[in-house]
């Protein structure tokens, strides 16, 4: 074989195990899961993910000594002509950072899901799906590890499609009901929407890959990047096309304008899915892709500017929508889109470290927020369940028999949860402060670095868009805190909500600690993440802390929190009351509630036009002109005239042939003897074919 590389140093040779461990967990659960108790399934999956995390740590340790990283060849894959692609892992500081986030946060969410899914499958009435959930979850880790660990665009694409598949499977996890558990196809429609929208993005990715192969003759990262500067000089248009097609892929996977519309619907999946896939890891794949392709992007400033502007616009746009949402997870979904916009803007500006930094801290605090939201939702479910038990006391209990449809995710049903769920409240508060960017939480440092970079590099528009988005971020998070945890309970279920068990809150505490301390990764002055990533992204340089920028963003965040108190905290919402902001803003708020009517716009502009065109073609062109006039009138009448008047000759003739009768009786008898051979059985026909083959071959071979 062709092991041209020297044996990797340190723990590098372990790299494939980041994929193998979760794969192992998946297989164990798939094969033996039926006979295992529920807890065991959950822990096996968590251990598998945890083992991948340990491997990632070992890889990181090795990288401290051999910072240049290495390439670990697993197997040859495709060698055609000059195309050489292998199953190979690229271990460098960038990919290992991603691996740490994916497996670390992933493991915590696995553990959380042990508790969460235990209750979720019972509220939804199908405990059998517990195992399936963890198989999908491990499969996701496998695909994500291939995505971040691959050393070529093709392998990245394999992972890219794999995570898309897992996302589809998990959004539609409760495929036969809607988010409230009623029989419906709403969840599977959400899954379909996510998948189809992502296919548009995949088209972009594939176009970029084809163009790269066409122009560079390779899809390997190193080979592509080595030639990038030359090609950018010779044919800048081509490189811009590649990067912009790639941006289309990014906008699909990382939910940017114009393809972000699938992410809010993706909240149909169970909450751990929203946390792991649709907040912490998969949706950041686009950011990783741009960071990975940094050597390509830096050669074309025009494309960089477009990326940055798109990210910043998305950040503000989604942040405004989040203000008008009532569903606790929808708010977080739009917040995720907005924060992804921050990251895309950062990597677009060339601030790759800032983007990656924000990716990491965002993984911490957004996972924390989502999981806490899950805890809130389950708490309400428990309260509602308790209530139903009390009222149906003595009668046979049926969880689906409630007359009233209760939405445990609607913030209008909450209120006052601070007292019923104190642990969750404090965790949520930490997540909120981190997301709002309050000193000294993790979000403050990473967001501030993006803003500072935008300011310093002269991206004026981007800077202002992001600053305003940050203001909105703090506002909608404040609104959420006041609505959910303060005031009085607006629903019986909220009044009886119960705190979640330790298996759910323990991982949350770890995440909370990371959300508080995560800023230490890249403190101004120390720049530990920058010097870590420098080994992979040669063009990065530590940015300096800019005090006015930090001060302005902090003041704005505090102002927004104060404003949210003034609107929602001063006079808490009571049951049935209209959102006070709606009274104040009127139609503007209704537009926010309806997500600026983007979905409706897509229908009006694309889908309906398309249907109208098809209808016009069918009714006017096909039916009226072609069928009615040309076909029925011209062709048929003309032909009938021809055939009946001209061709229809009256001929009559009898043929008697007795001559053959004698021969007939003889052959007829033979024929009837032979026909049972044709017994209708496929296999005896095949046997006949084979006997023919044997006869012919036998003749040829014996003849010599």
């Amino acid at each position, binding site marked *: 074989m062709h092991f041209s590389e020297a044996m990797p140093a340190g723990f590098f040779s372990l790299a494939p195990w980041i994929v193998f461990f979760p794969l192992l967990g998946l297989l164990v659960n798939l094969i033996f899961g039926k006979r295992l108790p529920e807890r065991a399934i959950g822990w096996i999956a968590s251990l598998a993910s945890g083992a991948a995390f340990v491997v990632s740590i070992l890889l990181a340790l090795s990288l401290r000594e051999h910072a240049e990283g290495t390439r670990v060849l697993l197997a040859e894959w495709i060698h*055609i*002509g000059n195309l050489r692609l292998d199953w190979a892992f690229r271990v460098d500081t960038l990919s290992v950072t991603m691996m740490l986030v994916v497996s670390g946060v992933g493991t915590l969410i696995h553990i959380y899901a042990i508790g969460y899914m235990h209750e979720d499958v019972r509220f939804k009435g199908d405990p059998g799906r517990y195992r399936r959930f963890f198989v999908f979850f491990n499969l996701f880790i496998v695909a994500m590890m291939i995505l971040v660990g691959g050393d070529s665009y093709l392998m990245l694409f394999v992972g890219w499609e794999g995570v898309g598949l897992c996302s589809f499977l998990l959004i539609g996890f409760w495929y036969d009901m809607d988010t409230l558990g009623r029989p419906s196809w709403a969840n599977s429609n959400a899954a379909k929407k996510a998948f189809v929208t992502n296919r548009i993005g995949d088209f972009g990715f594939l176009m970029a890959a084809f163009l790269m192969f066409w122009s560079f003759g390779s899809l390997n990262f190193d080979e592509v990047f080595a030639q990038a500067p030359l090609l950018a000089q010779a044919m800048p248009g081509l490189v811009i096309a590649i990067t912009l097609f790639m941006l289309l892929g990014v906008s699909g996977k990382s939910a940017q304008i114009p393809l972000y519309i699938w992410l809010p619907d993706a909240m149909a999946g169970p909450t751990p899915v929203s946390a792991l896939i649709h907040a912490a890891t998969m949706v950041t794949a686009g950011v990783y892709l741009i960071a990975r392709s940094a050597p390509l992007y830096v050669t074309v400033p025009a494309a960089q500017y477009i990326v940055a502007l798109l990210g910043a616009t998305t950040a503000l746009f989604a942040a405004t929508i989040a203000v008008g949402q009532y569903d606790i997870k929808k708010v977080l979904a739009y917040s995720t889109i907005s924060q992804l916009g921050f990251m895309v803007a950062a990597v677009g500006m060339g601030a790759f470290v800032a983007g990656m930094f924000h990716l990491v801290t965002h993984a911490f605090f957004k996972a924390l927020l989502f999981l806490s939201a899950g805890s809130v939702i389950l708490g309400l479910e428990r309260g509602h369940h308790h209530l139903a038990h009390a009222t149906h006391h003595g009668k046979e209990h049926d969880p689906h028999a409630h007359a009233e449809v209760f939405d445990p995710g609607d913030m209008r049903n909450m209120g006052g949860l601070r007292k019923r769920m104190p642990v969750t409240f404090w965790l949520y508060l930490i997540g909120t402060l981190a997301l709002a960017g309050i000193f000294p939480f993790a979000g403050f440092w990473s967001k501030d670095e993006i803003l500072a970079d935008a300011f310093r590099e002269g991206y004026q528009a981007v800077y202002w868009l992001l600053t305003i988005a940050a203001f909105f971020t703090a506002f909608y998070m404040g609104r959420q805190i006041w609505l959910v945890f303060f005031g009085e309970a607006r629903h019986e279920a909220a009044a009886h909500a119960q705190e979640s068990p330790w298996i759910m809150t323990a991982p949350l505490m770890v995440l909370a600690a990371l959300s508080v301390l995560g800023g230490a990764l890249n403190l101004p002055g120390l720049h530990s993440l920058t010097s870590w990533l420098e080994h992979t992204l040669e063009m990065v340089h530590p940015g300096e802390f800019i005090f006015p920028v930090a001060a302005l963003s902090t003041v704005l965040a505090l102002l927004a929190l104060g404003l949210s108190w003034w609107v929602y905290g001063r006079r808490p919402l009571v049951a049935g009351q209209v959102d006070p902001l709606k009274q104040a803003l009127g139609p503007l708020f209704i537009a926010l509630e309806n997500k600026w009517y983007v979905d409706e716009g897509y229908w009006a502009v694309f889908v309906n036009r398309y249907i109208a065109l098809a209808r016009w073609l069918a009714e006017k062109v096909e039916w009226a002109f072609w069928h009615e006039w040309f076909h029925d009138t011209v062709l048929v009448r003309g032909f009938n005239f021809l055939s009946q008047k001209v061709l229809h000759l009256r001929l009559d003739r009898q043929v008697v042939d007795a001559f053959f009768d004698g021969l007939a009786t003889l052959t007829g008898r033979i024929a009837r003897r032979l*026909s*049972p051979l*044709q*017994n*209708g*059985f*496929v*296999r005896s026909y*095949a*046997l006949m074919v*084979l006997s023919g083959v044997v006869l012919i071959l036998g003749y040829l071979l014996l003849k010599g």
Partner: protein
Amino acid sequence: MIPLSWYLWLSAALFSVGLFGVLARRNAIAILLAIELMLNAVNINLVAFWRYLTPGQMNGQVFAVIVLAVAAAEVAVGLALVISVYRRRQTVVADELDLLKW
């Protein structure tokens, strides 16, 4: 190095296993699988010939890839037919498809 003839024997053996499967199995899906086995036996032949006779040219490999693609198309059509038969007759046993005979 393993001599070419080993591959040819392996391929012939696999082909025969497929043949036997077609003749011996009653389940239409099993027959389908057996046919796939025959096609893939040929693929071993093609790739072995390519490797040993004309490693510099692509045609053997391309042939094998085309065979794979065609086999996939065949299976798609075949399974669709089997499913539609199953829907109406509740059976995939090939010997029970004998409306048409004599």
